[in-house]
Every structure is written in C-alpha cells, then in structure tokens.
C-alpha cells in the first residue's frame, strides 16, 4: 500500500477540506441549471438527463482509470529525462484505485474531490452542444474526457507533473499554479466545448444564408439565475478544497478564499450587467449570469494568492471579457454556443491563469511566474484543444454525435427520451418553415 505522501497539516485543515468537498456538487447543480435554462424548452429534460449521465460516467471512468493517469504528488509516476532533468509526464498507478488507502490521506481526499471535478469539467461541453448533441454521444465523449484528457492535464498541474515542476526544473518561480481548477477543470472543459461546437456545427435556423445569427433565447432565465447562486456556494468549496490539497495553503486562508470567490463573482456579474445595460439599454440576464460564472472561473487559479482588491480587478475584467467574447464567438466566428461555455470557461479561465502570473506576489520574490503561467496556457491550446478535437472527431466518424434534422425539429426531449419536460407547452417550429 502507498503511504500518503502529504497529510493535511492538522485536524482542522482536514475538517475544512471535507466540508469544502461536500459543497462541490453545488457547482454541478449550478452549471446544470444554467445549461438547461439557456437551451430550448423542448430539450430541457434531455439536458437534465444528460447532466446526470455525465456526472455518473465521469465519476465511474475516473474511478476506473482516471486516477491511474492523474496520480498525486509523491505517488510513483513515469518520467522522461530531457536536458539532464527528469520530467514527470504521467502517473504510474494501477486501475480501480488499487494500492491507495482511502483513509483520509491527502491523496484520498484528492480522489474524492476529483471524482466530482471531472464531472464538472464534463458538464461544460453540454452548454455548447445544447439542443443537438445525442445522449449516447455525450456519454462516449464524457468517457474520453474523464478517462484521458482531464487526468493527463490534471497530472501535469496537480499530480506533480512537468508543469508543476517548472519552478524546480526551469527556475520559473513556483511552477505553473492553479489552486481551484481554472485550467484543469474549466479551460479543459471550455476547449472541449469549443471542439464539440465545431464538430456539431450550429443549430438549424441559427444562421441565415448570409451568416447573420438569429437570437434563440434561453427558455428559463430563472433556472439560469438560480444556477448562479448554487454555483457560488459550490465554488467556495471547490476553490478551498483545491487550494488546501494542491497548493498546501494553511487552514485560515479559507476566509481569504471565500471572500475572493464572492468578490470575483460579484464584480464580474455587475460588470456584465453594466456593459449590457450601456450597450443594449437594458441589462441582459443571461449575459449577466455568464459574467458571474466567468468571474468564478477566473477566481479559481489565484483564489488563495491575491488580495481582495486585486481579485476585484480580475472579476471586472472577466465580466467584460465574457460579455464581448460571447458576441465575438457568435457573430465573428459563427460558433453556436447556447450556454456561452467557451467564453465563460475557456476565455475567463485563461484570463484567471494569466492574472495569477501578473498579479500574485510571493514572499520569496522569485521571478518567472508569468512565464510558467504562459507555458500552461500554451499547453492547453497546443495539447488539450487538438487532443479533445481529434478524439471527438474520431468518435463522430464512428458514432455521429449530432442528432438528425427530425430530432432537432421535434426537440431532444421527444426524440431521445420519448417525453417532454413541459408536456403542456407548444413546440415552436417557425425556423423550419420556408422563408
């Protein structure tokens, strides 16, 4: 049996860690409500069902093989020797969590947290593939994410891998840092969401023949806004647990982490409301919700490292960035992303990672943190995006991911589940009528 490499420093930290992890499922609740609310009413039941399947498959696949690839600092791993230094690239663990004591060690707490974090990462693409992504394809795609893409990158950041070693091996301050999962959870999920949106293509009726997008508003804004509040609760737990387990901060930092998380969400949400109020004369509820979540995503990387005033700046920039980015993807790049998943998770996450490099100060005054963060972002773009795209493209060759035209017309609820979420509603079909 492997002895735990790092034990939580004392009973208080252990208790705080457990309580924090217990809050994490609320992030999943929040994202599920947001994805469902921003989709069409005729796909609402399908969206909720898909979220449940995603959480289940992600947890099981992570249990079977995910942790075997991800590992934890101090646990045996495969290394490559390059330039006279050893670079840790993947964990060397048996499948099914064998050889791991589930006894309250830091590694066992990390497994518990990761079984939900990987589900959160896998929920993100549901936002971009809404109203047209088949349930079976969602399940296969989730298995790919939870079984390979996520654990490999998470090993590099949280498992003592080569990105975490950049400080020791390359003299870049503390190496790539991400306490709460801006990169491992959100950018990985957001870039997978971009791959899915590209592979599926836009919903029928979304773009006219000259490429102009038509508005397909979300069917239930109350779900979306309630989801934001659930997400905030869960995010405090996610950021705290991640900071304790992966950056080793002391227990009293939980206050700073919670305050930073709230400030980032509040400043980003209000910025998005203000920007849309100025641009469209009235605040836009769905973009405000996107801004709110974007602030939470951006807060994760440096939640334990920045002062609240600095985190407010991070939140304000995240809120504005998400608002403009959603429009840019829709109008400029013709990416049909009903939930704004790419902007909220990938763009805001990258901003959070870079903000850590720019704003965080360390007692030892080591330089080079910004370069480590830039290399982490380069890895996300150069490894995670092509990998997610290639694996989902291959899946699409063998098992088409997009529902047929009849399924889109009927709605995913009737077509895939045989029953509607709101049977008393009228189905709107005007986008299928000839113009």
């Amino acid at each position, binding site marked *: 049996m492997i002895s735990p490499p790092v034990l939580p420093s004392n009973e208080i930290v252990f208790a705080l860690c457990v309580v924090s992890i217990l809050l994490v499922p609320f992030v999943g609740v929040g994202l599920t409500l947001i994805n469902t609310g921003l989709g069409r009413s005729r796909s609402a039941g399908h969206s909720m069902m898909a979220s449940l399947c995603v959480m289940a498959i992600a947890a099981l696949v992570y249990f079977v093989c995910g942790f075997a690839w991800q590992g934890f600092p101090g646990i045996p791993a495969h290394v490559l020797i390059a330039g006279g230094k050893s670079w840790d690239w993947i964990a060397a663990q048996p499948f099914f969590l064998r050889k791991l004591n589930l006894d309250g060690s830091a590694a066992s707490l990390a497994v518990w947290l990761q079984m939900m974090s990987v589900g959160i990462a896998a929920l993100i693409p549901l936002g971009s593939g809404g109203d047209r992504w088949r349930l079976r394809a969602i399940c296969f795609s989730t298995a790919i994410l939870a079984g390979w893409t996520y654990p490999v990158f998470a090993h590099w950041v949280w498992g003592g891998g080569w990105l975490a070693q950049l400080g020791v091996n390359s003299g870049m301050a503390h190496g790539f840092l991400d306490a709460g999962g801006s990169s491992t959870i959100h950018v990985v999920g957001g870039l997978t969401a971009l791959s899915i949106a590209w592979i599926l293509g836009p919903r029928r009726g979304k773009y006219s023949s000259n490429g102009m997008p038509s508005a397909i508003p979300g069917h239930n804004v109350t779900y979306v806004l309630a989801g934001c509040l659930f997400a905030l609760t869960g995010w405090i737990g996610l950021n705290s647990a991640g900071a304790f387990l992966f950056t080793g901060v002391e227990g009293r930092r939980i206050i700073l982490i919670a305050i930073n998380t709230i400030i980032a969400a509040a400043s980003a949400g209000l910025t998005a409301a203000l920007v849309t109020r100025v641009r469209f004369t009235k605040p836009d509820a769905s973009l405000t919700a996107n801004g709110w979540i974007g602030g939470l995503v951006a807060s994760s990387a440096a939640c334990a490292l920045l002062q609240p005033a600095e985190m407010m700046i991070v939140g304000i920039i995240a809120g504005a960035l998400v608002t403009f980015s959603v429009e840019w993807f829709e109008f400029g790049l013709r990416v049909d992303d009903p939930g704004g998943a790419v902007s909220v998770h990938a763009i805001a996450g990258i901003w959070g990672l870079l903000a850590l490099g720019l704003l965080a100060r360390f007692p030892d005054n080591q330089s080079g943190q910004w370069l480590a963060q830039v290399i982490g972002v*380069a890895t996300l*773009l*150069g490894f995670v995006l092509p990998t997610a795209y290639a694996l989902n493209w291959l899946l699409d060759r063998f098992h088409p991911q997009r529902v047929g035209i009849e399924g889109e017309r009927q709605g995913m609820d009737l077509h895939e589940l045989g029953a509607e979420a709101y049977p008393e509603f009228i189905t709107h079909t005007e986008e299928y009528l000839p113009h």
Partner: protein
Amino acid sequence: MKIAGFLLLFTGWILVLVALAILPASSSRTGFILAGIAVEILGLVLAARTHRILPEDQG
C-alpha cells in the same frame, strides 16, 4: 485546412517544450517560448476560420 490549424497548434506547443528542454534560462529561451505561442495563435486563427460554416454548407 482544418488539420493544418490543429497541426500548427500542436507544433507551437512542441516548440515550447523543446525550448524548455534544450535552452538554459535566458532571454533566448523566453523568445523561443513566445515564438512557439505565436505559432499556436496562427493555428488557432486557421482552425477558427475553417470552422466558420454557413447553413448551406451544413446540408
């Protein structure tokens, strides 16, 4: 062209890795890393442009 975009993304990342492995800490290493990121941005632009689909292309 879609494949070319992703190949450029991957190649840019390999440049970053090579810079880390073979160059000592210096401004040339930083320059090499930033050059790799520039290649990635080129790949991202190419990938994004090749995915701008009009409804008639969708079938």
